[in-house]
């Protein structure tokens, strides 16, 4: 990614040569880009698998692939997208690249552990994918509910467990590193409440990782015992209990959804103020809402189990607790809207993707709050309504933010701008394709189409075909992005060090940055969002919206 004409390297300490990116580099920027590129490759793989799913579902009968293969593809798609694309990229990728800058450090707290964490990912991914070709992949969905996961072919399931254990380990090591870096490696004189919001998001995410991922690891170890050693933890035929697995699994996997989205919240909080040229609205409430989401996120897991026969009081508690997540999340969304209000908004690709994120996430969040209501969920649980809900959030939310972040930070990574026209084309195709693909799925779910099926009621054919066309558009939409990223690395307009006139510390150095981030001393940024003209200096006739907001500081 850092291929640029030799002149741009003159005088910089940036490591030269491609080999760096294939080595056990300890530089946080190299590791960040390693995560990003690896993740993107897995996105293409996961997307190709989604393509297979949508092709199969273009007709109501199981004709394109066998039913077993469908389940393998479905399991791989979910696992690859979550554990090899979203989690590594929004945490590992951007986290490693940005956090040291933001705390004013020259690297992460534990550079070696950092490299180890990254290098656990490619083997895990290769293991997972190759299981498809060697023994047949796991067939029990990304949730791997027993007893199905115990009775399907063992080899694929065991490889799946191994791979997820490796990825979970990687994630835990990464999280330890982030917590230590944010809390301990801050430059002297920099207070926690002066950090860019992404640091807070990563702190919250990492706390979730440290508290919940180990539970998944333990659970999967027990599950592997059931498969390999024929113990009966989750095997009712041997006196075990299948619902215990679900509790333990979701104790991790619900927090995991915030592990996938909190960093995206953080990235948006960095992007919006810069392109709207206004301070981030409500810094303090933003911080507390992150902490609120972390806390609530840990106590709502059973909303995935409303039909599993849990006791009524439990369903009631989890309904209320889940619904309340809308409160801290809502704070963040309204604060972002207020950040935009009265700004000077540049409608570039980064901004478009960020705003589409708000649009999609609010939609997905509202369907989420509906799902949290037990009586509502009883009808739509395990249907395409749920598939619609979470793609609106993980794709329409997090993936859109990743795209926004690529347009925003590409000049930092490479020193060159991405082409804006191609960016907008990418946006348009993705936006249309995405909504065409996933909006109809809500209706399908409400009207009787269960998820994870290779064949369905022919009455649902038309909408499924619309959805498949949407997926095709999304696949096409990756072409302008890929072309743009590769072409711009060589031919893109030279960006200069700080094309966005930003104030956060990663922009206060050369682009791409030197090995130790700053040639001289690290800048100490106390107010990362100090954009904007103070209200009393502003030309009242040239602005608007002044009558709705008053200056919070006056």
């Amino acid at each position, binding site marked *: 990614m850092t291929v640029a004409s030799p002149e741009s390297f003159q005088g910089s300490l940036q490591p030269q040569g491609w080999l760096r990116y294939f080595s056990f580099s300890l530089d946080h920027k190299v590791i960040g880009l390693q995560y990003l590129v690896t993740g993107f490759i897995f996105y293409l793989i996961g997307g190709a698998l989604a393509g297979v799913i949508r092709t199969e579902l273009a007709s109501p009968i199981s004709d394109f692939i066998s039913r077993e293969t469908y389940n393998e593809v479905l399991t791989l798609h979910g696992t690859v997208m979550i554990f090899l694309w979203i989690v590594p990229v929004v945490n590992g990728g951007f986290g490693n690249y940005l956090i040291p800058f933001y705390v*004013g*450090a*020259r*690297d992460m*707290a*534990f550079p070696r*552990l950092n490299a180890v964490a990254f290098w656990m990912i490619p083997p895990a991914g290769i293991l997972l994918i190759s299981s498809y070709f060697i023994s047949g992949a796991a067939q029990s969905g990304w949730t791997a509910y027993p007893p199905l996961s115990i009775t399907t072919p063992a080899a694929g399931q065991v490889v799946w467990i191994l791979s997820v254990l490796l990825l979970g380990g990687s994630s*835990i090591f990464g999280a*330890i590193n982030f*917590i*230590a870096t944010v*809390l*301990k*490696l801050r*430059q*002297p*004189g920099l207070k926690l409440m002066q950090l860019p919001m992404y640091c807070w998001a990563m702190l919250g995410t990492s706390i979730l990782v*440290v*508290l*919940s*991922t*180990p*539970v998944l690891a*333990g*659970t999967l*170890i*027990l599950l592997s*015992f059931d498969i390999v050693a024929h*113990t*009966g*933890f989750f095997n009712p035929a*041997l*006196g*075990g*209990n299948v619902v*215990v697995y679900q*509790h*333990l699994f979701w*104790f991790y996997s619900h927090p995991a959804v915030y592990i996938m989205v909190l960093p995206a919240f953080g990235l948006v909080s960095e992007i919006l103020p810069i392109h709207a*040229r206004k301070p981030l609205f409500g810094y303090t409430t933003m911080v507390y809402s992150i902490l609120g989401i972390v806390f609530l996120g840990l106590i709502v897991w059973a909303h995935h189990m409303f039909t599993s026969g849990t006791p009524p009081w439990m369903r009631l508690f989890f309904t209320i607790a889940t619904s309340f997540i809308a409160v801290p999340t809502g704070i963040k969304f309204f604060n972002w809207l207020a950040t935009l209000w009265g700004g000077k908004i540049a409608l570039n690709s980064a901004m478009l993707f960020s705003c589409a994120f708000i649009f999609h996430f609010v939609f997905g969040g509202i369907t989420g709050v509906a799902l949290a209501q037990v009586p509502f969920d009883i009808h739509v649980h395990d249907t395409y309504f749920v598939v619609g809900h979470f793609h609106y959030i993980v794709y329409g939310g997090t993936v859109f933010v990743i795209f926004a972040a690529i347009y925003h930070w590409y000049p930092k990574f490479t020193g060159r701008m991405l082409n804006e026209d191609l960016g907008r084309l990418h946006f348009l195709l993705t936006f249309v394709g995405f909504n065409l693909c996933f909006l109809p799925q809500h209706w399908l779910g409400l009207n009787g189409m269960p998820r994870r099926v290779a064949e369905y009621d022919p009455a649902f054919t038309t909408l499924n075909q619309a959805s498949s066309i949407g997926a095709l558009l999304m696949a096409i939409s990756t072409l302008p992005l890929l072309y743009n990223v590769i072409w711009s690395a060589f031919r893109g307009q030279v*960006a*200069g*060090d*700080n094309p966005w*006139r930003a*104030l956060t510390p990663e922009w*206060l150095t050369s682009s791409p940055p030197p090995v*130790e981030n700053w040639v*001289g*001393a*690290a*800048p*100490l*940024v*106390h*107010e990362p969002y*100090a*954009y*904007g*003209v103070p209200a009393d200096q502003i030309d009242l006739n040239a602005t608007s919206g002044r009558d709705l907001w008053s200056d919070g500081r006056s």
Partner: protein
Amino acid sequence: MTSLAPSSTVVTTTSLAQPVEAVEHGHGDFRMFGLLLFLVADGMTFAGFFAAYLTFRAVNPLPPGSNYELELLLPSLNTVLLVVSSFTFHRGGKQLLAGNRSGCRPWLLLTAALGSAFLAGQMVEYFSLPFGLTENLFASTFYALTGFHGLHVTLGVICILVVWFQTRDQGRVTASEPFGLEAAELYWHFVDVIWLVLFGLLYVL
């Protein structure tokens, strides 16, 4: 292109007196903090196991006639061994910090011996138990919990032996660089505390 926003005054730089190397390598030692975070994570793994065990116990009846009155004598003895070993480790650590490396080493060996004795006791118990791993739900959970803990003890004993080796005359662990020993000690106390919880849940409850 590089012009900053109006209020660029908020960007100051740290004093140039600090050379680059000092900033890079001069930061404090966070390894203990990192270990602590790791132990929190590890503790959550155990917490998951404990929660599973308690739920199984509350919800899933065992087949009639399955015996799960465990022998208490040996495990209690083991508990004592482990608790004592925490104290011996602590004594050793204090010796090292006081600069007395040779006074520290026997304590470390003693700790490792106590840990090994615990493991031996565990093995004896395993072989004398009337049930095997797949006998029933309780048996599986019992072996999974004690086995996972035993793995931790084994790792701990290895760490202690490594530290013991490194406290020899040319070794790396010294009074001024005690990280290895302190880390092993923290880990050992953690394993000890986990055992106490485990003992309470499995044997006493």
